[in-house]
């Protein structure tokens, strides 16, 4: 992060102003109840506003806000800079504005180009005296509360009454849509045929097309509840969870790696447990409120080792931002606020949200919650590996690798302590060199080079602690380090003289005898020399102690009292050289840290790759609860006032209570799924709609704020949202409500008249034609060649386009450090942040993949081989291939086209792919295969 630019208003004076007149006081006085007299406004418009435009707004206007200041609204003056307001009622001269205009010496002077003429300053002065009159600006001056009052998404969800039943209306969803269409003179298209419908809904719910058998069964089912039975069957299959979990994983910015983390293991060993949790949650129709609570706070609602703990991957599978904690928390605030609430709270990290009622205080209220939570080093085990032998093998190997880490760390701990002792002189030398009185002499160290700063700091801290007392070992150091270099030798002489004359007196300086003798033996001429002298004396004691321990391993002390006194400085309680492991990790050199990282990587690598590694949940736990200060402009170096951990004001209202249980995560989750919260239910309802129709009722699915787009059918959104909450938050019920409607059933046929009225089809006069996405593409190609492996769960597989890998695409490794090109080419979700939707682009790289990739060619070969086996004549073979790829018979024209191709296609030695294989591949490439009508 950049250090903030020096801002002109950052001076102690502004802080004082801030203390005298807070915004609240100011608002109270200046926001007079009676209307502003018209002549005051006229005075402002004619005399003052032009001055502001001319002299202030270039730097403090809508384009630039130097020092965070905006002077194009009255609110801007009241709010002032980061440090406080510009004008104070009743104290014109105390107003910061008048001070800077006054061009005082040693003060901020504004405008920077030169002092304003006296008469202009007088005009501004008068304006401040009048209470800064400013005409009402409905947008610019709208307060937080106002915005919360008028914007649709912040209004409570009230279940709307059903519109008067329409003649061909079948369901409530139809009634709402038809009512909106009817208002424009539009109506629904006719129902799609059964083939189109089963293909549409199977791709929608399973992510693969139906087989010819599925189609025949549905087409021949004459019972009135045929469609209901179809929906039941599709929703009951685990294939549904494997498809719909992926939509949620986009929102959860799911990936199997951490982003760049230097040399540490970049893969998450256990991210897959979160993915599997989500698949399972969709399959068992976990109520959405429970789903939210578990993802935010499973640690408080389930037992240790419960598989549901994996839910918390929602918070923890994000990028690791070079391990910068502020950015990690920012990512978590973002995924919670945009993902669950459709609010861009992240915009309030550095300033109040510019468009939505989210003050920066609210951001730091959430920040405090996550800052009060930690990730345990040892993640909880939530299951056992399938094979006991593999598990045992894993544990054995793990113990070996972990021991390598602890052994090495213990070894380096001992080394660090040795270094602190044996290099005491060098450390003191650096401290001497840092002393302001002493010039920066090039130091000569006893060791090979300068001791590491962290070691020096240990000694420095120790010296600072002992400076306050008459320390028996370091008193001479403390005295002499205050002396100027020129006076140093004289002071040493004086000290020695005193010691000599003190001999035998009871009130003599109580100085360690060995130190005293060293100084008297070779009086130091400078502080660096004194440093060396201390070092040498300490090293002698270290030598004695080592020798004694060699003879008598259980020796407890040195026999000589003075030597023992020095030994205790090096080995005793509170010694700078006695270090706990945690501390030692910060003291070791880069080489040691690199080695530890390398050894830990071996541990992590085993967890990532070993088939016997048990699944673990990427949980968070409550740490010590702490409120966060507001960080001014998002800068950790500029903490402002503390804010309680609590929910967003715009949702919880002015009477919200701070959270009190631990970090507050559970309470946060409860606030999110509270029935009174107007956002959560609308947001998830909209996401469901979005994935059925390609676009949400609200086309900006993660931004329900004032900059997002309004719902195309607000009553329907609210009706479905109430229905969701009343239906115990069941998403499968929601699917049924939508899928059994005539709206979803209708044809995607073009209608010129309707398009003239509603060109974007926002009112849904037809079913949108949707192109299949990346996962549907790969899964469908594998499915129609009978190769798709439907098994559930487990570690991700690498090399997604290797034709040997046949698991569903949701199980492919999502490597955010280096996402394979094919993911990007097919518009995979952004892996760095919560993705509300995917773009849908058409680029030649997609076509190149379809035409040339070994993956597609291999699947085509299998389809062709199977097709050729199943019939004896070419027409029969062709039909068999059509049944595989499209789950239908070819038309007679299609048969002719295909057979003609087979007659004309050449086979020369360069053609390794047979005409039949080429034909099967061409069918896999068609728009028919890649779109759902």
């Amino acid at each position: 992060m950049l250090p903030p630019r020096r801002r002109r208003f950052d001076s102690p004076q502004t802080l004082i102003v801030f203390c005298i007149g807070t915004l609240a006081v100011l608002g109270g006085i200046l926001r007079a109840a009676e209307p502003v007299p018209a002549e005051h406004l006229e005075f402002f418009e004619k005399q003052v506003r032009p001055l502001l435009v001319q002299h202030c707004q270039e730097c403090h206007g809508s384009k630039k806000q130097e020092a965070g200041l905006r002077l194009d609204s009255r609110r801007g003056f009241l709010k002032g800079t980061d440090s406080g307001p510009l004008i104070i009622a009743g104290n014109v001269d105390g107003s910061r504005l008048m001070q800077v205009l006054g061009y005082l010496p040693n003060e901020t002077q504004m405008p920077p180009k030169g002092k304003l003429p006296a008469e202009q300053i007088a005009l501004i002065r008068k304006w401040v005296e009048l209470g800064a009159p400013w005409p009402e600006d409905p947008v610019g001056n709208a307060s937080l509360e106002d915005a919360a009052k008028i914007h649709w998404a912040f209004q409570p969800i009230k279940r709307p009454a059903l519109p008067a039943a329409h003649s061909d209306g079948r369901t409530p969803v139809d009634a709402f849509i038809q009512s909106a269409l009817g208002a424009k003179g539009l109506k629904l298209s006719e129902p799609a045929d059964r083939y189109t419908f089963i293909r549409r809904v199977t791709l929608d719910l399973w992510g693969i097309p139906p087989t010819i058998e599925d189609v025949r069964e549905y087409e021949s089912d004459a019972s009135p509840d045929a469609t209901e039975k179809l929906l039941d069957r599709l929703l009951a299959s685990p294939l549904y969870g494997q498809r719909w979990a992926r939509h949620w994983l986009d929102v959860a910015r799911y990936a199997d790696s951490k982003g760049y983390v230097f040399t540490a293991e970049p893969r998450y060993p256990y991210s897959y447990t979160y993915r599997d949790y989500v698949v399972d949650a969709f399959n068992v129709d976990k109520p959405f409120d429970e789903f939210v609570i578990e993802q935010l706070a499973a640690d408080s609602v389930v037992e240790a080792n419960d598989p549901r703990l994996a839910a918390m991957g929602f918070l923890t599978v994000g990028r690791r931002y070079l391990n910068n904690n502020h950015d990690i928390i920012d990512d978590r605030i973002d995924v919670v606020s945009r993902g669950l609430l459709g609010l861009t709270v992240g915009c309030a990290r550095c300033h109040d949200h510019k468009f939505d009622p989210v003050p920066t205080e609210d951001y730091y209220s959430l920040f405090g919650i996550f800052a009060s939570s930690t990730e345990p080093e040892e993640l909880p085990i939530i299951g056992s590996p399938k094979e006991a032998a593999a598990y045992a093998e894993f544990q054995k190997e793990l113990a070996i690798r972990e021991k390598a880490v602890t052994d090495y760390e213990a070894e380096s701990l001992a080394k660090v302590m040795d270094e602190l002792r044996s290099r005491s002189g060098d450390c003191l030398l650096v401290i001497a060199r840092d002393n302001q009185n002493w010039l920066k002499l090039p130091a000569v160290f006893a060791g090979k080079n300068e001791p590491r700063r962290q070691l020096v700091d240990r000694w420095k801290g120790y010296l600072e602690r002992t400076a306050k007392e008459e320390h028996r070992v370091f008193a001479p150091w403390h005295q002499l380090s205050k002396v100027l270099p020129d006076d140093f030798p004289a002071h040493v002489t004086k000290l020695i003289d005193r010691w000599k004359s003190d001999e035998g007196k009871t009130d003599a300086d109580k100085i360690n005898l060995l130190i005293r003798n060293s100084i008297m033996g070779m009086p130091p001429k400078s502080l660096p020399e004194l440093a060396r002298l201390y070092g040498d004396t300490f090293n002698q004691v270290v030598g004695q102690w080592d020798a004694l321990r060699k003879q008598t391993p259980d020796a407890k002390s040195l026999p000589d009292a003075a030597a023992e006194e020095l030994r205790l400085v090096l080995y005793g309680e509170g010694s700078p050289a006695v270090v706990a492991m945690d501390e030692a990790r910060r003291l070791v050199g880069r080489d040691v840290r690199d080695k530890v990282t390398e050894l830990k990587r071996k541990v992590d690598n085993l967890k990532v790759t070993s088939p016997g590694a048990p699944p673990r949940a990427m949980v968070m736990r409550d740490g010590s609860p702490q409120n966060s200060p507001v960080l001014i402009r998002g800068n950790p170096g500029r903490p402002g006032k503390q804010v309680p951990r609590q929910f967003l004001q715009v949702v919880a209202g002015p009477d919200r209570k701070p959270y009190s249980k631990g970090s507050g995560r559970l309470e946060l989750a409860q606030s999110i799924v509270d029935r009174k919260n107007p956002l959560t239910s609308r947001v998830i309802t909209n996401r469901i709609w979005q994935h059925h129709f390609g676009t949400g009722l609200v086309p900006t699915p993660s931004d329900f704020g004032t900059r997002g787009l309004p719902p195309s059918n607000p009553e329907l959104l609210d009706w479905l949202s109430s229905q969701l909450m009343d239906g115990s938050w069941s998403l499968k019920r929601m699917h049924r409500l939508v899928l059994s409607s005539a709206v979803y059933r209708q044809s995607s046929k073009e209608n010129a008249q309707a398009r003239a009225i509603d060109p974007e089809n926002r009112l849904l006069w037809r079913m949108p034609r949707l192109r299949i996405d990346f996962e549907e593409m790969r899964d469908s190609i594998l499915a129609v060649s009978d190769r798709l492996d439907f098994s559930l769960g487990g570690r991700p597989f690498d090399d997604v386009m290797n034709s040997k890998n046949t698991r569903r695409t949701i199980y492919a490794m999502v490597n955010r450090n280096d996402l394979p090109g094919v993911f990007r080419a097919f518009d995979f979700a952004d892996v760095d942040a919560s993705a509300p939707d995917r773009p849908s682009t058409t680029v030649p790289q997609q076509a190149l993949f379809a035409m040339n990739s070994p993956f597609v060619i291999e699947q085509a070969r299998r389809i062709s081989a199977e097709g050729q086996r199943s019939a004896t004549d070419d027409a029969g073979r062709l039909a068999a291939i059509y049944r595989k790829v499209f789950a239908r018979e070819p038309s007679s024209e299609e048969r002719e086209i295909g057979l003609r191709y087979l007659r004309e296609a050449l086979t020369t030695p360069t053609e390794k792919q047979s005409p039949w294989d080429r034909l099967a591949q061409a069918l896999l490439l068609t728009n028919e295969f890649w779109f759902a009508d």
Partner: protein
Amino acid sequence: MSIPTTRELRQHLSLPSTRREFLNRAGTGLGSLGLASLLGQGSQIHAAPGDLSPMTPRPAQFAAKAKHVIHIFLNGGPSHVDTFDPKPSLTKYNGQALPTTNLPTERKTGAALASPFKFAKYGESGIEVSELFQHTARHIDDICVIRSMRAEVPNHEPSLMLMNCGDGRLPRPSFGSWVTYGMGTENQNLPGFIAMCPNGLPITGAQNWRSSFLPGVYQGTYIDTRHKQIEKLIENIRNDQIGSGEQRRQLNLLQELNRRHADQRSSDAALETRIHSFELAYKMQMEATDAFNIEQEPKHVLEAYGNSVQSRQLLIARRLIERGVRFVQLWHGEGQPWDNHDDLEVNHRRLAGECDRAIGALLTDLKERGLLDETLVLWGGEFGRTPVVELPTPGANAGKINGRDHNHHGFTCWLAGGGVKGGYVHGATDEFGFKAVEKPVGVHDLHATMLHLLGFDHEKLTYRYAGRDFRLTDIHGEVVKELLS
């Protein structure tokens, strides 16, 4: 004059669903014809529905010279005091402590280290350049040397991210993806943004050319120039199963089926676009093969560039620019080759030897073909190196005391072509080259200036994401007017 808003772009990307809708939109002012007009006024491009691609070329916000960018990235951090920023005082103090305090960098540093390389004056401007870049230096009158660059921290990862994506830590789109987002690309048969790096990835890998929250089409296409065969350079560029004649016949079958399918559906524009994309892909197979095949170059050109893999990719860069690719980034090599903490003399000489000649040849070549005016060339690393020697650190520089540490306080980049002022030195570092002291240029300023040269107001090239209008320069950056010709 406007850059697409996110909404417009999304509207575009979701594509009108029929030809009629397309014309309808055209009639309602969303753009008279296709994306080109969605994104900028006065476009003369007449697009069929099939050309409605996010890569369709479109004019920038205002008229400007530069149309293409070549970024020669000397990853690891080339030493400015050994290349383009001569410091005689270092020779004076060689082996002694500088009279000023050493600024904090990544590691411990010691005494002054004189440059072992000879500097000479070049061109009419008489700008001094070291022997390392003597071939490049012949073009000094076309080069604008910025000696007062500054980055934020002395570490590779954040500095790479800053130079490439405008932010040291947070995931943001790369420069190349912003430019292709803003301008599309001129040749639909080649990727619009290509990043080449021989032998593997640089530090922080593909993040250096990511599209982040911009649509994936704007991400750089990575090419490992270690390979010479086209199928190893671009994924799926060739079908090794059938010849092109039979592939054409197969595509004809596909398109016949697609045609029938589309006609039954009143010619949905999304269907048309996909039909068209197969024709583009078919042509791309030829065009890309051709673009990367430097064997077609005459012998004297091959000789002028030289033999190294870096030379080869510089020559490929020229071939790509000629063919209308928008943004080409050339990395010196895998990892961080220019990161010479020790043996700087030997290593810098070797590394410069691998690219200097070809950079000179590239500039000659671009000029001769009249391409230099419209191609903005940027040369530089993620930061420079200290004027003082790096002290031995266990595990870091093998105890040798003959290299330089990272230096973000001051370093050199240069620009050429595309409307920059040639033969000009901008700003200066202090007497020893430690810190930019005169007219410092931050990375955001460099980005703002380069966007300006391409015809963009850096404050207006924005993309709405997560509730905010993002831009390459975030809330920073000022155009450095002195760099413009």
